[in-house]
């Protein structure tokens, strides 16, 4: 193999010397193209961040990169609408649902990965299929149940919904991480007389912590950005940021700077988490079909 490779590189060497200039210009074109595309796609986010530092008058003026930045809008967003309250709802709902989803999913994924039965595959696929149920198809019953048991506009209600909504993805993702773990280590632990509980807590969890962390992060991202249930099931008390931002939709064109400031704060944490976990996220989002 190495001989073959060096042979091919030897034959291609003279060609690449003559083609050096065209290769260089090709590289330059790709660099320009790659960066232009990336900047165009990112532009709305960039523009939103920028507008958040403008005054309301500057926000609706002709687009310009030169303006005197101000934190006015950020202060206004907190002072007038109590941004923090909605942010806390988002945090509570995202972390709460992720905690419960992991709590339910870890034993389940452990059983599927290390104690598989004939039914394991079927169970996994069935879990995947529950994810295919469109939320809008069950909007009516969920709304009525929530109304009758007093869960409308409560954080608890959203935590329940998001836990169940993300559970299939969390189980799948954990399953793929657990499967990648060498079985010998767990077996050795079992030989030494570790109970299932000890096996999970002292061997499995520490060894698969990166996988569990990225699963948790995906669940947090999905809950944080979810906007169907949050818009339909909350009004003022338990509204997370998705619903709060939606409240800017009524007075058109009046509060662009405030909308931008609030939006920037709402997306910043998730954008950073997303950048950190993009590679592992693919597993969860495609149910392990693309790795």
């Amino acid at each position, binding site marked *: 193999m190495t001989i073959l490779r060096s042979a091919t590189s030897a034959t291609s060497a003279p060609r690449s010397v003559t083609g050096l200039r065209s290769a260089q210009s090709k590289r330059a074109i790709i*660099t320009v193209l790659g960066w232009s595309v990336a900047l165009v796609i990112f532009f709305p986010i960039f523009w939103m961040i920028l507008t958040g530092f403008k005054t309301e008058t500057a926000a609706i003026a002709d687009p310009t990169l030169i303006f005197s930045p101000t934190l006015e809008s950020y202060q206004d967003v907190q002072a007038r609408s109590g941004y923090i309250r909605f942010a806390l709802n988002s945090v509570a709902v995202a972390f709460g649902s992720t905690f419960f989803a992991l709590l339910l999913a870890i034993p389940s994924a452990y059983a599927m990965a290390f104690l598989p039965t004939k039914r394991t595959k079927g169970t996994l696929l069935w879990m995947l299929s529950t994810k295919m149920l469109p939320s809008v198809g069950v909007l009516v019953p969920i709304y009525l149940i929530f109304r009758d048991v007093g869960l409308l506009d409560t954080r608890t209600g959203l935590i329940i919904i998001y836990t169940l909504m993300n559970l299939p993805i969390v189980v799948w993702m954990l399953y793929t991480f657990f499967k990648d773990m060498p079985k010998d280590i767990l077996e050795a632990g079992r030989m030494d007389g570790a109970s299932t509980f000890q096996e999970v807590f002292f061997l499995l969890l520490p060894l698969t912590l990166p996988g569990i962390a990225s699963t948790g992060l995906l669940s947090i991202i999905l809950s944080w950005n979810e906007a169907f249930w949050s818009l339909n099931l909350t009004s003022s008390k338990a509204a997370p940021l998705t619903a709060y931002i939606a409240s800017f939709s009524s007075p058109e064109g009046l509060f662009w700077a405030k909308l931008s400031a609030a939006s920037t704060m709402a997306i910043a944490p998730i954008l950073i988490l997303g950048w950190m976990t993009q590679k592992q996220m693919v597993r969860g989002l495609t149910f392990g079909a693309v790795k």
Partner: protein
Amino acid sequence: MTKTRASGRTVGGLRTLSLQAPAVTLLLLWMIVPLGMTLWFSFQYYNLLMPGMTGFAGLENYEYLLTDPALWAAMGNTLMLVGWVLTITVVGGTLLAVLFQQEFAGRGIARVLAISPFFVMPTVSALVWKNMMMHPSNGVLAWLAESFGLPAVDWFSSLPLTSIVIIVAWQWLPFALLILLTAMQSLDEDQVEAARMDGAGPVAIFFFITLPHLKRAISVVIMIEMIFLLTIFAEIFVTTSGGPGLATTNLAYLIYIRALLDFDVGTASAGGVIAIILANIVAIFLVRMVAKNLED
């Protein structure tokens, strides 16, 4: 030997069952109860504004819904929305994946910027596009058009569905890119190199090596996007509220109007059943594909 293995399996089976029970039970409830209720309501007279009128309605809700022109408008809009967004994101995502696979200065940062919109919550992306980008007099697009001497487009009143398509495509293009870029990493570089040695140009390499390699990832992207795109809601809710008229009302939004604005539980449930059936047609293919993947 066979005896111990058999008993070991049943003990294992029992442990598996108890470990899985909580997750499975809750998911089962989460699926069966609302699904059953939606089905039940869809055959009932049930309007929260008319408490006196209850009872079995037979297929009347379905009849009412299926003869309502709004349903067919909504179905058409759903189809257009899904079709256009899929076309844009899959074609664009594939081309961008090829582009971002090439080495260039700062590629890592460029990639991160390009996938960012996927992490932006739908209400934020919809409102940022509606106001700061597409506003007919103060938006960036209007300013751009005017600086080229073109008339500014009043996006949401003259091209409402197109505007929604643009916003949704902007959110999902990065998803396609992210998945396809990951799939690209397992492309056999030696094979590409060999093809290049044999004189294959970049276009031939794309069509005969890259595209076949990405085939499976592309189908995964199509199916996952379809399931989400069938029920786009927040983007419509904060921008057009389904209007003007019914121009941007999709199936999800129609069900929302019937349920939470008209309080017509029966008809809304019948709509829900239709949405579930549509999603399931897509889902069957996706589940089959993932199942195949589990075997290897």
